């Protein structure tokens, strides 16, 4: 006997309820998208990626972006060798004189740089700016295509920053070098300092879980959305799509900085001429292809990675000890990783076939 329409509909009720329950289950248990925000700034010759973990409303996002841009712009004016800011004016004076007044905002980093210069036995020296300009590494868009001649290099040898003497008076701080002609370039340390300043802005805005990544050099506060900030260390010789050779979970306040021959370079007659000049010779350092430092102090990590790159794997342990840096890695010219025990204990090796 045919059933009525209402019977048929009634028969469908349990199935419909079951379907609704299943749909509700799927909807309610879908994975939540992590609350993470990303800001991109251009500065220091690179793209700066700022990641903020946690909820952020639009007004705060806009305010934080505005404050970061303003701080970065002020920093670049102060430290750029190509602008007429505090460092530009100091360089103009030191080009002609052995002594010059130092603008107050420059003093702490200039003094720290002198200390790092001395501790690293001159392997980090910001007073080689004339060589950096000669090689065309002062401005990325004006890089040369052939190396300078040896006589051009020797003609521009400058006094070392290790020999700088600071004198304070009521008028301010004065610096004196053995001779005139130094040109300071803080490309090996300023990025670290800039990252610290950007983190100050974020901290002042109440953000406690942030990552500031300035073209691959970075520092973190707090943690990512649901776990510590996890960083891949890129293989310096991987072409095309980046490959990580190791991974590392960073603790709050840690900075990871590297110096490598892959960052800025030109090739001539099959030889790579990169921007990390050996302060002893004025030529690109040839003892390593990359050096990495992990430390709470981003400016020190930045400068120390430069010093360890110039030092190479043999001298690296002594230089690192002198700089009080215990987590470091140097990759030699054969691609072999030389890693300090303190850093090795924290690295997650992703490429066990790699030498080292």
């Amino acid at each position, binding site marked *: 006997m045919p059933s009525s329409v209402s019977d048929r509909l009634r028969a469908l009720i349990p199935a419909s309820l079951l379907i609704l329950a299943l749909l509700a289950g799927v909807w309610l248990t879908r994975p939540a*998208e992590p609350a993470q925000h990303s800001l991109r700034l251009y500065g220091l010759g690179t793209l700066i990626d700022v990641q903020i973990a946690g909820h952020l409303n639009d007004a705060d996002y806009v305010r934080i972006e505005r404050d970061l841009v303003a701080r970065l712009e002020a920093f670049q004016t102060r430290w750029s060798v190509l602008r007429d800011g505090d460092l530009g004016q100091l360089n103009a004076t030191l080009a002609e004189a052995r002594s010059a007044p130092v603008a107050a905002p420059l003093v702490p980093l200039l003094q720290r740089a002198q200390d790092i210069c001395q501790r690293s036995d001159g392997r980090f020296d910001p007073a080689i700016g004339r060589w950096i300009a000669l090689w065309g590494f002062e401005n990325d868009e004006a890089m040369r295509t052939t190396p300078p001649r040896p006589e051009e290099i020797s003609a521009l040898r400058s006094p070392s920053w290790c020999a700088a003497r600071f004198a304070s008076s009521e008028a301010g701080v004065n610096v004196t070098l053995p001779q005139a002609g130094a040109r300071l370039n803080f490309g090996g340390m300023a990025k670290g300092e800039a990252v610290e300043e950007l983190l100050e802005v974020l901290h002042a805005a109440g953000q406690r879980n942030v990552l500031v990544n300035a073209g691959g050099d970075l520092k973190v506060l707090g943690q990512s959305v649901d776990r510590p900030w996890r960083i891949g260390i890129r293989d310096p010789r991987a072409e095309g*799509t980046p490959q990580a050779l190791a991974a590392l979970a960073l603790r709050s306040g840690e900075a990871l900085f590297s110096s490598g021959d892959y960052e800025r370079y030109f090739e001539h007659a099959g030889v790579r001429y990169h921007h990390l000049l050996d302060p002893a010779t004025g030529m690109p350092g040839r003892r390593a292809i990359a050096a990495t430092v992990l430390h709470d102090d981003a400016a020190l990590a930045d400068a120390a990675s430069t010093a360890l790159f110039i030092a190479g794997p043999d001298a690296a342990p002594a230089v690192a000890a002198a700089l009080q840096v215990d987590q470091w890695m140097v990759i030699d010219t054969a691609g072999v990783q030389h890693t300090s025990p303190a850093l090795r204990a924290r690295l997650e090796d992703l490429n066990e076939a790699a030498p080292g």
Partner: protein
Amino acid sequence: MKLRRADGLLLALALLLEGALIGRYWQPRSTGHTALVQGPTEQIRVDLRRPQQLQIQGAQGPSTLVVRDGAIAFTDSPCQRKLCIRSGAHRHAGATTACVPNRVSVSIAGRRVDGFDALHY
């Protein structure tokens, strides 16, 4: 109450729909299908499943990008060193590349599939 053939069919359909929804919603929302191309004055959302060529005006001139096989790559940019072109094609969620002098960046939506918050180099 006896389930009829049509009811069984309906249930089967519902289960299929369920499977499709699970596939859709139990994944991260962004799985590398969308790239955000950002210039100084404009922003373009690009579907990586559709092969195409696009141009965006940068600070120094136009940058050209090509989408092919689910990946996006710079093919021309007015910068001197062409690092953006040399960086190759990008397809994974969270990947970023940029022509810094031209102020043009490309980022692929979503969290990185390799589980990293950043790549250090």
